[in-house]
């Protein structure tokens, strides 16, 4: 291997790093994320080997840089090595007998072939099942009100997706769905139904741009909620059109005014309500429509809940439209 222009270290001074995930993997890791117990993120970047050892560059990176790397906003070469939070990087030669030689090097002394080629981005990552957190990139100027609102609206979309993917056999609580209070009560109940350990709460936030907000939550439900937002972004016009048709049907049939839930009027409209609701929700690719319809007490309630759900997905996406947040590119 190349002789490094670097300072020999007696030992690698950073201890207690925990492997989070591999960002590039081919027959073994090539770029991996580690986390220190103090929350600092480190990248291990493989750069060389010989018959005795593998050589890794190790650098400390900010969470915002890491997010911009994984969301493919920053190229690998913009992070490795110049994204290091320190004025230096480490090199580790890991030998087959388990011994490790450590070095400290200045970025400008790193050989060119130890750095990624320009304009090379990570490939899209699969969500990691081992983590219990999800971060969003923050851009622009966030008001205190916006900082308070984003977790609230995201939580509503997240809780619906959580409820649909869960094992709970009981359906949604029934409401009259005339006027705005039913929506209020519905989302209050469905967010409260999420077990405490999976309820989103803000673990960390860095407001200044580029910043980030990190939630502790169930990553599978979060990924599904994010997918709903990116699906909405991809099919916004047709979703709005189908939501409008469903609202118009409810209005023209006077369904908001029928107080008697056992009225025979419902039988006349249930098939249409079912079809219009399913058509609206079909644009959300991972939305379990059949389960949603089962969990809804009536077709009318399913229609109203779906319209409220779409409203909150729209509100989440509005943060991106205002230049405040960056959601993943559609997969």
């Amino acid at each position, binding site marked *: 291997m190349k002789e490094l222009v670097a300072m020999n270290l007696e030992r690698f001074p950073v201890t207690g790093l925990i*492997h989070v995930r*591999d960002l*590039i*993997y*081919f*027959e*073994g*890791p*090539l*770029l*991996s994320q*580690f986390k220190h117990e103090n929350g600092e993120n480190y990248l*291990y970047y*493989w*750069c*060389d*080997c*010989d*018959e*005795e*050892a*593998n050589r*890794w560059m190790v650098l400390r990176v900010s969470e915002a840089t890491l997010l911009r790397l994984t969301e493919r906003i920053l190229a*690998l070469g913009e992070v490795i090595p110049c994204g290091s939070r320190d004025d230096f990087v480490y090199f580790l030669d*890991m*030998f*087959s007998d388990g011994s490790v030689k450590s070095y400290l090097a200045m970025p400008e002394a790193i050989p*060119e*072939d*130890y*750095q*990624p*080629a320009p304009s*090379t981005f*990570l*490939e899209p990552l699969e969500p990691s099942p081992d983590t219990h957190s999800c971060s969003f990139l923050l851009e622009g100027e966030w008001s205190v009100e916006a900082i308070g609102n984003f977790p609230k609206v995201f939580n509503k979309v997240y809780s619906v997706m959580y409820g649909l993917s869960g094992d709970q056999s009981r359906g949604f609580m029934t409401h009259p769905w005339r006027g705005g209070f039913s929506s209020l009560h519905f989302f209050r109940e469905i967010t409260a139904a999420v077990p405490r350990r999976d309820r989103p709460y803000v673990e960390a936030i860095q407001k200044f741009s580029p910043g980030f907000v990190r939630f502790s939550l169930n990553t599978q439900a979060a990924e599904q909620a994010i997918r709903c937002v990116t699906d909405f972004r991809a099919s916004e016009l047709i979703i709005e059109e189908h939501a409008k048709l469903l609202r118009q049907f409810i209005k023209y049939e006077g369904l908001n005014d029928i107080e008697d839930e056992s009225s025979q009027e419902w039988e006349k409209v249930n098939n249409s309500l079912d079809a219009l609701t399913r058509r609206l929700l079909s644009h959300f690719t991972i939305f379990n429509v059949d389960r949603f319809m089962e969990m809804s007490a009536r077709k009318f309630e399913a229609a109203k809940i779906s319209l409220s759900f779409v409203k909150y997905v729209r509100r989440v996406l509005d943060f991106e439209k205002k230049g405040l947040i960056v959601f993943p590119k559609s997969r």
Partner: protein
Amino acid sequence: MEFKYAEEMVLVDNCPPSDAVARETEAFRFVHEEIGDGRNFLCVWKLNPARKLAEKERCSGLGLSFFISEECARKRYEHLSRSHRNIGKSLGTKLASGTLKNEDGRRSNPGSSGHFDFWEAVGVEFASRFVIIADLII
């Protein structure tokens, strides 16, 4: 079927995965200069020195990486050689092809990149059945 690394496989959940199948297929793999190089068909766990970081390894570390087509293999190699310019030292600089037979082991479902993992059965020896078909370094 008895697998080559059965002792290590028991340490990993669901390894090989339950949806892995035995299927005859043409396959493409990155190899070193000489097809007889001992590293060419050795799984990650058995390479010395092994390129691994985490204590808990993946099941794929006990399998071999193949591609369903030359095009898929070249595309993946090109990306890897851009993200890691010395990747040839680890994976090799040549592309080899050969046929995987039903009795050779089980494979995962190929992903959208055309890559799949292959878990070898005991006694399988690929070096004499694969031939180098191309250089990967341009």
